């Protein structure tokens, strides 16, 4: 295992920076230090087009005074640079005339995920070779594959968090990912297919998974759609394959259970704790400590341990997701969901790995007992309006279900629904849970890595946005 090192700034310096931040008073101050390096390689049109690498270091300082947060960041990690950022962040406390506070820090070690091979220690030529293998595998699937692009990416993000409660901790987050996208050409035009792989681990990812299989899956998806017919227009029953549709859960209720939406009364789930908000078959969990999934973290970006939080238990809403600021106001602990894109951003409530737990139904029976509907095998992105609960997500591989059998492929379309309504309409949940691929969740202009998962499930009716008459 690789030794992690998360002391980016000496604790004594951080202590003085926090004291400076609270010089004019304030309820809470925090320093977040980050050192991130990343490598990205893209292959496109048979060529390794670009190998890019970079490193960024910096710190974000925030000061909370009453209802107001002041924030400033700097790329200068010297004591002088940090003190200047602390003073800028403290400007919000200027008029309040509060009293200075001294801060003492106590180190709390975190447990970063196990990494056996740091990507930075692997020769670039080896990474390039993976892309070539994927390109060959995708093109060998069929002569109809006319274009292939593939991407390799790794990142190492070391963070250190200190706050005026005395917390001092850190994490070393290593992520590795791989993706392949294909274009297939046929008589009726072109179609696309993609597949990706990603884990919060190092280069050992490629000992566990084969890039050829990722490529073959992307190619198969594009080829399948060459004979696809238009998706239906209107309300239809939908069966969603395990591990493909986590994004449905992420959009239908995940975002709506983030406490920042709750405290602003801009979520359909506000004030509904203890109520039945979904089918009794639904148990929803967000788990930052889950294996080496894409949203895994030892601590969140406020220094709180990632952990398993049950949000919906057998249909009943049991809790929301919390960051430090909202939890403080509500007089409860953070749930480890305070995250930020980088030191240049303020943290907010974010999901980690969000999933629906397995049920008891045989997935084959779920399809067989659906006389007419759509089988969704792979989903793209989604979006939600938390205040109304209206959400949508796109299909990238879907088929008609006719007489309980999966038949013809369908062209890509968006599905649209209302969160609580769709959750109530889940009438079958399979015993075949799986997580989906690596996801990127965007909120308020910030992107963070997240995981999604779910067993095979059926929604009795959801609006399909295709062009074929119902």
């Amino acid at each position, binding site marked *: 295992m690789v030794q992690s090192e998360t002391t980016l700034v000496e604790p004594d310096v951080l202590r003085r920076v926090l004291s400076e931040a609270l010089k004019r008073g304030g309820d809470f101050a925090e320093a977040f230090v980050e050192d991130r390096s990343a490598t990205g*390689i893209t292959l*496109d049109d*048979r*060529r*390794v*087009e*670009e*190998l*890019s*690498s*970079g490193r*960024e*270091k910096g710190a974000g300082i925030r000061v909370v005074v*009453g*209802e*107001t947060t*002041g*924030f*400033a960041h700097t*790329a200068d990690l010297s004591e002088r640079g940090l003190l200047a950022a602390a003073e800028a962040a403290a*400007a*919000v406390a200027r008029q309040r005339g509060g009293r200075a506070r001294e801060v003492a820090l106590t180190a709390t070690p975190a447990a970063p995920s196990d990494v056996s091979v740091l990507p930075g220690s692997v020769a*670039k030529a080896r990474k390039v070779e993976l892309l070539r293998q994927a390109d060959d595998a995708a093109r060998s699937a069929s002569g109809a594959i006319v274009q292939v*692009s593939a991407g390799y990416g790794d990142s190492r993000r070391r963070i250190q968090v200190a706050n005026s409660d005395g917390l001092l901790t850190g994490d070393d987050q290593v992520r590795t990912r791989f993706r392949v996208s294909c274009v297939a050409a046929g008589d009726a*035009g*072109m179609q*696309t297919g993609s597949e990706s792989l990603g884990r919060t681990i190092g280069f050992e990812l490629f000992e566990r998974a084969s890039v050829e299989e990722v490529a073959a899956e992307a190619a198969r998806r594009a080829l399948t*759609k060459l004979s696809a017919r238009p*998706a239906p*227009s*209107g309300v239809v029953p939908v069966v969603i394959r395990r591990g493909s549709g986590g994004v449905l859960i992420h959009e239908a209720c995940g975002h709506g259970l983030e406490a920042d939406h709750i405290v*602003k*009364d*801009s979520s*359909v789930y506000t004030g509904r704790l203890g109520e039945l908000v979904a089918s009794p078959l639904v148990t929803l969990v967000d788990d930052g400590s889950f294996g080496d999934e894409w949203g895994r973290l030892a601590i969140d970006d406020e220094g709180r341990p990632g952990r398993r939080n049950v949000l919906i238990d057998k249909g009943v809403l049991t809790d929301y997701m919390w960051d430090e600021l909202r939890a403080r106001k509500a007089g409860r602990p953070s749930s480890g969901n305070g995250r930020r894109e980088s030191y*240049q951003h*303020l943290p907010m409530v974010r999901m980690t790995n969000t999933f629906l737990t397995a049920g008891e139904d045989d997935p084959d029976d779920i399809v067989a007992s659906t006389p007419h509907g759509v089988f969704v095998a792979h989903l*793209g992105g*989604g*979006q939600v*309006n938390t*205040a*109304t609960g*209206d959400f*949508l*997500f*796109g299909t990238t591989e879907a088929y008609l279900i006719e007489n309980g059998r999966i038949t013809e492929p369908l*062209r*890509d379309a*968006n599905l*649209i*629904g*209302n969160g609580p309504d769709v959750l109530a309409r889940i009438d079958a949940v399979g015993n075949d849970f799986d997580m989906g691929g690596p996801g990127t969740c965007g909120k308020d202009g910030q992107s963070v890595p997240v995981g999604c998962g779910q067993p095979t499930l059926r929604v009795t009716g959801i*609006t*399909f*946005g*295709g*062009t074929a*008459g*119902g």
Partner: protein
Amino acid sequence: MAELVDLARAVAAEAAPGEEVEAFASRGRETSVRAFEGEVESLSSAESAGIGVRVVKDGRMGFAFAGALDEASAREALAEARDNAGYASEDPHAGLTGPDGVEAAGLDLWRESLAASSPEDKIALALELDRRTRAADRRIRQVVSADYSDALRESAVVTSKGIEAATRRTTCSLSVSAVAGEGEQTQTGYGYSVGRELADLDVGRAAGDAAERSTRMLGARKPLSQRLPVVLDRRVTATLLSIVAGTLSGEEVAKGRSLFAGRVGEEVAVGNLSLVDDPTDPAALGATPFDAEGLACRRNRLIEGGKLLGYLYDTHAGRVAGTPSTASAVRGGYRTTPGVGARAVLVEPGDLDAEEVMAVVGLGLFVQSVSGVHSGVNPVSGDFSVGAEGLMIRDGALAEPVREIAIASTLQRMLQHVLAIGSDLEWLPGSAAGLTLAIDDVSMSGS
């Protein structure tokens, strides 16, 4: 800016024989204020700066960046980019551009008044936006966030082939998200105002738009599925145009990833539709004198009278196609390499105002906003399926609101089925201008 140019020049001057080097240095200062329930929820001030370096040698390109502007970081990025180049495939078209003789438009995109304005003025604007949105209608139940934000950006690109270009610009914006409620129902609306200095910002309009868009959706129901003409709100048209412009990237065309590949000279749209990308128009928010490779931006005609004239190119895509760059290189900042993109796309306006466009349609759907564009529009196949909300048009006028619907067609069909083009052109945030646009024969999926 001189400091950025000096640093970029010093890096480009390091080019060894047989090597081409480009340095892109940028610096930004940003302030943002969020108001909530009459208080300042957050005030952020930030400075960020960095350098991105491209090295081309023997037809191989490498890139590296650093989030700092000191010489040591720049040298490290240069060394790393050199190393990275060794692993790229040989590409006969790889290489940097030299000056092409086109003169840069004299655009003044920097407002000293914004650089000099105080945090107090910005806080006051956010608070006023929050207050005026709440006061705009008794049915406004919540103002989720009222935001002010601005950015002062400077950048310089210098290459060992003689390019030296520096730009700077200021932008500021107000945006507000309102929740309206009546009985059991909740609806949301978003309003904004953008400009280059505080005096450009219109608090009343941002507040009024958010209030109107949320309240007029109250009582919305899910309609029956049907095929009908749609009238796109200006914001929706701008979104659609950005997508269409993306499919006209010469890079995507060359790689066979555009539905318009191989169609130059064909009638790809109705006869009265003309599409232009013109970053030299100072009114466009995407305006800039130089592209990301340091060439002077120019007006590029893409579709004229329904006929496809050509594509957008950066240096590399142009070389692949055997044509000069159209100065359409864009980059997301110092962390990324340039790629092809539009900055200021517009459809030549027609002569009908929004009401007249609706009158032409008679019975249809007015689309106030769309969602799921990133998951529902495929630039290769042209499949188009997005979530929508809006109001029915009956007897040529806005009627009852409808929600939880999707609209679907293909980009190819939509361009061929444009019914009417509005005269109400307005530059919006992003890379396109909006105007009211009517499109026939779209599938609306409801119940």
